[in-house]
C-alpha cells in the first residue's frame, strides 16, 4: 500500500458534458489530472462539482464526452467496474455493519478471502484500530470521515474522489483532517480529486487547483500561480480578494501595457494581461498595496502605480490591519498591511496615497459587474463586521 511505485495513470476528461433537461450542469470539460497528484476542484455551490465527480465514479452518465484512465476508456463502465472509489459528502457508511466490515466491504466484493491484515493496516493508517468493532453511529463526525476515507482507499483505486469530505466538520477538525488527508495522500501516492468550495482548503492541500464556475473550468494551475495571476474576474474574486478597477488600454511602454482609468494611468506587465479587447479590468491583491500618509508622497518609488484616496475604515486583526479606502471616483478599495511596525497607523478620514509595484498588477477581460465570484455570504459578513466596528467606534 505504501508502495509509491505502484503504476498509477493520469485521469483524462474529454469534452465531458452533463445536461439535466435544458440545464447544463457540466459544460464541455476537458482536463487531465496527473497521476499521483492532489487535485482540488474548487467552485461555488451548484457549479457542477458533484456532477463531475459522479460522472467519474460512474454514478451519473455523461451526456457527452469521455473519461479515460491512462489509455483505458471507462466511460461505458458501471460504477462497480471502475478502478475509482469515492468518499461521499455524507460518508454513506453502512449503518448495519461495524467499522471493520465497512472497511472490508470493497475487498470482500472482489472475492478477497483474508481481509484482516489489510483492514487492520488501513484502520491503523487512519488511526481507528481500536474502534474496529463499533457501529458507525457510535463514532464522531471526524472518525466517521476517516472510516469513509479508509473504506475507499483500501481498494487501492487508481483515483480517489472526495466530495467535500470535510464539509460537515467544525473548523478545528477541518484543519486537522486537511493535514491528515494530505499525509495519507503522500503515503499512498494515489491520485486524489478533492471537491470543495473552501478556497483556503483547496490552496493548502492541493498541488493543482481548478476553479470551476457554471459548469466550466475558469482557471487551473498551482495554487500560488492562480492566486498571484488570476486570469478572469471570477477567479480574482473567488480565490482571495482583489481590487478591480475598470479602464482602457491606451498603449504600451516597454514590457508594460498602459491602462487609463478614471483619469489615472496604470502599468500592467504585458504577460499578466489576459484581455482580448481594449476594455480592461485592472486588478491588484490587497496585500500588495502600500498605504502612505498623503504627506509622505515623495516616498512612492518611481514607476509604481499609485492613486490617492481617503480612509473610510481601519480594522486591526492582529497579524494585519485592514483598510477600506475611498478612491476619488467613489470605489471602495481594500488594503491589508502587515503589522510589522508598532504604533502609527492611518486613521479614518486621513487622506492617503496607495501604491504598488506594476509587476503585481494584472489585467483581465471585464466581466458583467466586478462582483463576479464574490461569495454573497462573505459580503454580508463584511457588512455586519463594518457595522459593528462603526458602533464600536461610537461607544
Amino acid at each position, binding site marked *: 500500500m505504501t508502495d509509491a511505485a505502484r503504476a498509477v495513470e493520469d485521469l483524462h476528461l474529454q469534452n465531458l458534458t452533463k445536461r439535466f433537461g435544458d440545464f447544463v450542469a457540466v459544460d464541455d470539460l476537458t482536463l487531465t489530472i496527473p497521476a499521483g497528484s492532489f487535485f482540488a476542484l474548487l467552485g461555488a455551490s451548484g457549479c457542477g462539482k458533484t456532477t463531475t465527480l459522479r460522472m467519474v465514479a*460512474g454514478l451519473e452518465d455523461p451526456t457527452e464526452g469521455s473519461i479515460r484512465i491512462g489509455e483505458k476508456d471507462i466511460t461505458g463502465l458501471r460504477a462497480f467496474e471502475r478502478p475509482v472509489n469515492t468518499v461521499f459528502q455524507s460518508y*454513506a457508511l453502512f449503518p448495519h455493519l461495524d467499522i471493520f466490515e465497512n472497511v472490508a466491504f470493497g475487498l470482500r466484493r472482489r472475492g478477497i478471502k483474508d481481509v484482516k491484515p489489510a483492514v487492520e493496516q488501513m484502520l491503523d493508517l487512519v488511526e481507528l484500530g481500536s474502534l474496529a468493532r463499533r457501529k458507525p453511529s457510535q463514532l464522531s463526525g471526524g472518525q466517521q470521515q476517516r472510516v469513509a476515507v479508509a473504506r475507499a482507499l483500501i481498494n487501492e483505486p487508481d483515483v480517489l474522489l472526495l466530495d467535500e469530505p470535510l464539509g460537515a466538520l467544525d473548523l478545528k477538525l477541518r484543519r486537522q483532517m486537511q493535514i491528515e488527508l494530505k499525509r495519507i495522500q503522500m503515503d499512498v501516492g494515489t491520485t486524489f480529486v478533492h471537491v470543495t468550495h473552501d478556497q483556503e482548503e483547496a490552496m493548502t492541500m492541493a498541488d493543482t487547483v481548478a476553479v470551476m464556475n457554471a459548469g466550466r473550468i475558469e482557471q487551473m494551475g498551482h495554487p500560488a500561480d492562480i492566486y498571484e495571476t488570476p486570469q478572469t474576474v471570477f477567479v480574482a474574486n473567488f480565490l482571495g480578494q482583489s481590487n478591480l478597477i475598470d479602464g482602457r488600454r491606451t498603449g504600451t511602454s516597454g514590457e508594460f501595457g498602459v491602462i487609463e482609468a478614471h483619469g489615472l494611468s496604470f502599468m500592467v506587465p504585458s504577460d499578466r494581461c489576459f484581455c482580448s479587447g481594449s476594455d480592461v479590468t485592472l486588478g491588484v491583491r490587497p496585500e500588495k498595496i502600500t498605504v502612505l500618509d498623503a504627506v509622505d508622497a515623495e516616498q512612492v518609488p518611481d514607476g509604481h502605480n499609485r492613486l490617492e484616496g481617503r480612509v473610510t475604515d481601519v480594522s486591526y486583526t492582529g497579524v494585519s490591519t485592514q483598510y477600506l479606502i475611498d478612491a476619488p471616483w467613489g470605489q471602495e478599495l481594500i488594503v491589508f498591511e502587515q503589522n510589522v511596525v508598532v504604533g502609527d497607523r492611518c486613521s479614518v478620514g486621513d487622506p492617503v496615497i496607495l501604491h504598488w509595484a506594476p509587476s503585481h498588477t494584472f489585467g483581465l477581460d471585464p466581466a458583467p459587474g466586478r462582483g463576479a465570484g464574490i461569495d454573497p455570504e462573505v459580503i454580508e459578513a463584511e457588512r455586519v463586521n463594518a457595522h459593528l466596528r462603526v458602533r464600536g467606534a461610537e461607544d
Partner: protein
Amino acid sequence: MVAVVPTAARSGASAPVAQRSSKTGYLLLFPGMAWLGVFFAIPFVTLFMTSLQAPVAGSPGKYQFGLEFGNYASAMAEYWPLFLRSFLYAGIATLLALAIAYPLAYFIAFRAGQWRSLMLVLVIAPSFASFLLRTYAWKTILADEGIITSTLNSLHLLPEGRILNTGIAVVAGLTYNFLPFMILPLYAALEKIDPRLMEAAGDLYASPQTAFRKVTWPLSMPGIVAGTLLTFIPASGDYINAALLGSTGNRMIGNAIQINFIQFRDYPTASALSFVLMAAILVLVFTYIRRAGTEDLV
C-alpha cells in the same frame, strides 16, 4: 447498547427534567394501562378459568368452576391437525405476501416518485370495504365457472379441478387479506434507507444484485420481521377465509374455536384451544425474532 457515554452524560446533565417527565410518563401511561386491564387482563383471566371449567351434570351447555386440565388434553387430541394446518396456511400466506409485497414496497419507496402517496392510498383502499365482503368477492373470483379456474383448468394446472373450497383458495384469501399489513411496514423500513448507501455499495464493487443482498435486504430486516409478524399472527387465528373459501377439509383452528363457542357451546374446549393458540404463537414469534436477530423489535 448504543452510545453508552453520551446517554450517561445527557441523563446526568438534565436530571430534574428526567424526574418530572417520568411522573408525566406514568400519568400518560394510565389510560392505556386501564384499557389493557379492563379489556385484556380481566378477559384473559376469565378465559383461562373458563378453559378449566367442568360440565354441570345433567344440564348440557352449563359449566361450573373447576380445574379440569384434561380439557386441554382432549381438545388437543381432537384438534391438533387443525393447529398444524393453521400454521401451515398462515406460513405459506406470509411467504407469498412477502414475495408480493417486497417488490411493491421497494418500487413505492424508491421508484414511484410523485405517485408514491397515491400508490400507498391504493394499498390501503381495499380495507375501506369490509373484510367479510372482500372475502365473499373472492368466492366469485375463484368460482368454478370463473375465468381463473377455467383458464388454469384448460392448462391442466389444477389437480383437484377447482380452486374454490380447496386449501389454495384459503391461502389465496389469507394472502390477499393480510397483504397491506406486510406492505406498510416493509415500505416504512425501505423508505428510511438512504439511496446513497446503494450508490456507495456500487462504488465499492458491489453489483446491483450484491448491493441488494448486502445492503438493502439487511437494512430492511426490521420491516420484514414486523410485516411477517403482522401477517402471520392474525392469519393463523383467522376463520373467515377457511369458512368462506375452503371446504370441511380446510378448517383452521379459528373455525374450531368458533364452532365450539357458538355451535356446541363447549366453552371450556373453545377457551382451551384459544389459550393453546396464543401460547403457540408466542413461542413461534419469539423463536423467530431470536433467529432474525432484530433486538430493536422486542
